[in-house]
């Protein structure tokens, strides 16, 4: 058991490093001008995606927000295809049509990012509804931010899933901010999970910087769904340790907050935990290195691929 835990932790560490390296690579590509437009990184929030996605089964469907690169990767989408998407290459998951904030890769169970706050939740409810009839055993997982809880469609989705006992896992990544505004200024009751609870949905508040905790919660949610007991709501506390988007000067952060957040961010934390268990620094180093090498290779390949041909721009509007 203990050995297993350590292996799992090392695997989580690798997954998180992959996402971190992906995001850092994207940042660099954006600063270099290879990637353009608005880009939302999830540095610091990796544990939620990693813990959730390692628990999901192949038949499950993930619906994320614009902050979705890491979710896609945790779901198994190759970094090269994600990077190629952001670089508008033919080899991108959608040939560049989705871009950073709106891509999908259904072949990996990643049903897409969404750039309308809260809009993924009702769509996930639909994917769960389909599961009621298609024998897939699918659970739909949708992730959104703390701010999204104030978007009416999310309330509607929660209620409909509850009323119909639909197999949905709602994950609210509470990273304390909605863009540049603290969530606690925008609500009276800072316990967002209470809203789900009030709708009759089992709701937990967990440490979202601990992949194992996320995995546990999602595992229970899947079982709940499998038993026909419908949705679960998970409020996962985490912190983004970058801006809301690339270029965000983060003036809204109180002094010292970012530094504090960086001390509890999931990679640092897990590294510390593993080191405390006696894992050698070189082993930990190697994990990071492996991830960085993978992503670097992926970036090279993505950059080398041809841009999607503009003559295809009008295809696929209709069947």
């Amino acid at each position, binding site marked *: 058991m203990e050995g297993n835990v350590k292996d799992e932790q090392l695997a989580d560490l690798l997954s998180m490093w992959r996402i971190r390296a992906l995001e850092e690579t994207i940042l660099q590509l954006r600063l270099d001008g290879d990637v353009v437009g608005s880009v939302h990184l999830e540095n610091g929030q990796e544990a939620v995606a990693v813990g959730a996605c390692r628990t999901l089964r192949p038949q499950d469907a993930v619906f994320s927000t614009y902050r979705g690169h890491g979710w896609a990767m945790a779901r198994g989408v190759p970094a090269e295809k994600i990077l190629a998407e952001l670089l508008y290459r033919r080899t991108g998951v959608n040939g560049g049509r989705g871009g950073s904030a709106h891509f999908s890769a259904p072949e990996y169970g990643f049903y897409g990012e969404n750039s309308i706050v809260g809009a993924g939740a009702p769509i996930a409810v*639909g994917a769960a509804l389909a599961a009621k009839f298609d024998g*897939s055993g699918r659970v739909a997982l949708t992730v959104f931010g703390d701010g999204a809880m104030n978007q*009416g469609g999310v309330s509607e*989705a929660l209620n*409909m899933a509850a009323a119909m006992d639909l197999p949905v896992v709602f994950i609210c990544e509470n990273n304390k901010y909605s863009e540049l505004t603290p969530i606690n200024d925008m609500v009276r009751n800072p316990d967002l999970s209470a809203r789900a609870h009030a709708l009759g949905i089992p709701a937990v508040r967990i440490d979202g910087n601990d992949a194992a905790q996320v995995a546990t919660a999602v595992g229970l949610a899947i079982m709940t769904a499998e038993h026909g007991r419908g949705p679960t709501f998970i409020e996962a506390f985490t912190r983004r340790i970058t801006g809301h988007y690339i270029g965000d000067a983060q003036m809204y952060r109180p002094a010292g907050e970012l530094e504090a957040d960086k001390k509890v961010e999931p990679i640092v934390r897990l590294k510390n935990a593993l080191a405390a268990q006696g894992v050698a620094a070189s082993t930990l180093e190697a994990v990071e290195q492996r991830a960085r090498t993978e992503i670097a290779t992926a970036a090279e390949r993505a950059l080398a691929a041809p841009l999607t041909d503009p003559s295809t721009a009008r295809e696929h509007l209709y069947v």
Partner: protein
Amino acid sequence: MSETAKLTYGGAINAALARCLEQMPETLLFGEDVALPGGVHGVTRGLRKAYGERVFDTPISETAMLGAAVGASMMGRRPIVEIMWADFMLVAFDQIVNQAANVRYVSEGRLSAPMTIRTQQGNSPGACAQHSQNLEALLLHVPGIRVAMPSQAQDAYDLTLSAVACDDPVVVIENRTLYAGAKAEVQIGGPIAPIGGHRLRRAGDDVTVVTWGAITSSVEAAVDATGVSADVIEAVWLNPFDTDGVLASVRRTGRLMVVHEANLTGGFGAEVVARVVESGVSLSAPPIRVGARDSRIPAAVQLAKAILPQTDDIAAALRSLAAR
């Protein structure tokens, strides 16, 4: 397998939905009050009983309903969702415009959203401003969705089937003033037609009248009353719109009139006019649009009459156009 039945417009839709549920196991039918109560207009009566859980009632949550249709259709279901009044789409327009319409295109064809939205629109006597709008023009500016608008029982049957069978999102806009009208012979059980096309309701030589929706019957009445020799083209499919069919007629008649119940400014009549004149077809008189005056719709019947196009307005416009 094709046979005929005497059906109202509402009954024809009911028959089409029953056939969809019967023959396409991936269909789902849901909306507010559609299942156990059979719909506030009775259009879905009996379907829950016949098809069980695939037909269900939803909370008053248009965003969740439409989102659920998007998600279920992405997974291969073929949801048919009812928005009780077209006006209510507006609380959830995001799920149509930003979500459903984008699924196929943005995913580069890897995903699709074969969902059908059934709704109904327009004024009926005493309906308030929030239950009277004709909103097709809003949908027709949105690439990625299809729009159908039947006004006769046969088309209601046929278009519903074509919409549900279509692999893209389709909005079928019905009209509640027609649901319980006279019964007509409806051919049922025949092959499902592909989407598109128009219906020629009157054939003539001097004017081309393009129209759609419940006002089609007023157009027919105006044509009959004036005796003007006119093609009356009912655009039962507004997207895809049969531009070629309209042009072929206008080329012959040299005169164009477009009639819709929606208010004039920014209505789809402008698009029809623009397409015709852009084509360079020669016109013997400037085209005319007839639509509601640009206004909100008052509940008072006598006021609404002053806003909405009446048969007399259509007839007058037709006469003046034919005379030029």
